């Protein structure tokens, strides 16, 4: 039912975790995937394990020049994408009182400005092609309901949610639908970096009593990227085992 045959998709952060699972899922559904990552070897490994057409690109979401270069390379190799996903993200957990300006700027720059810059880079080509498209951003439940120890990260992720909704309004006239997936705690390298006490407490707080698998988050991204979601824009879907339920 979900079929992406003939679609070109850009997935940023495709070297690991949710981005990797998304690139693999898109490829399995028939898309041609530009898998971009800060770690080109990791992006190449994703391409190597794909059941389909996945091509690795180097892209650092905090470095505009690399975004522009990757965009030019993707447009030259594959043409205008139909689907753009940014799954690159980073967190450093600790009390807000212990954080400093350098960390704030890194968290907001990588998570929020990184998402904005990746999406912005591909919009002109998508609009020019004129047959609509899909943007899927990855925020976090932290951005919907807050999360202690992740205060600035939550602020950046909340920014991604508001950015996605506003962009959805501006892009509706171009039939480019913009939606946001909010993972809860997910079995990724990022989660593995947390202290064990935090990890156990989070698992206990999840009604389904386990972490998300990256593939389960990728499934929601694939739904938004597909023709099945043809009337859905500006929406936020949590894939978090019931950890947060927005009223």
């Amino acid at each position, binding site marked *: *039912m*979900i*079929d992406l045959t003939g679609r070109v998709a850009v997935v940023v952060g495709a070297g690991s975790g949710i981005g990797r699972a998304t690139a693999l899922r898109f490829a*399995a*559904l028939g898309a041609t995937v530009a898998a971009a990552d800060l770690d080109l070897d990791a992006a190449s490994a994703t391409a190597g394990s794909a059941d389909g057409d996945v091509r690795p690109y180097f892209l650092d979401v905090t470095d505009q020049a690399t975004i522009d270069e990757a965009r030019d390379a993707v447009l030259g190799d594959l043409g205008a994408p139909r689907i753009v996903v940014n799954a690159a993200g980073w967190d450093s957990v600790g009390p807000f009182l212990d954080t400093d300006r350098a960390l704030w700027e890194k968290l907001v720059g990588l998570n929020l400005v990184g998402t904005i810059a990746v999406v912005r880079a591909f919009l002109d080509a998508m609009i020019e092609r004129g047959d609509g498209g899909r943007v899927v951003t990855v925020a976090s439940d932290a951005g*919907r309901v807050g999360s202690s120890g992740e205060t600035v990260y939550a602020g950046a992720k909340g920014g991604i949610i508001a950015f996605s*909704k506003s962009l*959805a*309004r501006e892009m*509706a*006239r171009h*039939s480019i*639908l913009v939606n946001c997936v909010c993972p*809860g705690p997910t079995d990724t390298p990022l989660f593995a970096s947390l202290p064990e006490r935090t990890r156990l407490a989070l698992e206990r707080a999840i*009604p*389904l*009593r386990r972490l*998300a*698998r990256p593939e*389960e*988050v990728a*499934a*929601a991204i*694939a*739904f938004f990227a597909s023709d*099945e*979601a*043809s*009337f*859905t*824009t*500006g*929406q*936020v*879907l*949590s*894939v*978090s*085992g*019931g950890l*947060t*339920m*927005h*009223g």
Partner: protein
Amino acid sequence: MIDLTGRAAVVLGAGAGIGQAAALTIARLGAAVAAVDRDPLAVAGTALLAEPQGSVHDYEVDLADAAGFDAVRRGIERDVGVPHIVVEAGGGADPAGAEPAVRAFLDGMIRRGRGGRIVLVAGAGAGRGDGGAAVALTTSLAGELARYGILVNCVSAGPTESAALAKQPQQVRRELEREIPLRRLAHPDEIAAAVAFFASDRASFVTGQVLSVSGGLTMAR
């Protein structure tokens, strides 16, 4: 990629509109569907429409009739089995009105012990209010049923093409379209696609969530 082969599904309010589209979509994906509606002719029509490509049994019952509903539930469990999927798409003015009908299937689902999916359809497109009651029901049920692996989610439908809307003056439609960023109404199949996603194994970690399929009309929270 969404495959419901071997699954039993109940769709309440399957005689027309979104409920009918949901029943047909779920049947096309391979599930055996019990289509329930208070209008026997309408729901028989749904079963007929499904015939070339899916298995849909039709049942007539008024959800307000508790004794009648219990008999229908037994019939459904006999004919298609204990449901894995229950979709509520038109049991009354608000899905909360259909709570007893959803409740009726829970014992069997829990006893079977293989989890399941409940999808409530709320919103203007379902001919209902703002869906506040449906959202409250979704989150409460999701919290209580997580331990059984039964996931509960809600699709909030924006203005949707329907027989009732077709009878309204053109002016009403134009005003609705102007307010919707995508500048058109939903087709029932577009609501049904979100229902099918929640009903599927692809949504294995999603519970207590509300997804608005409204062309951007509402972007609450």
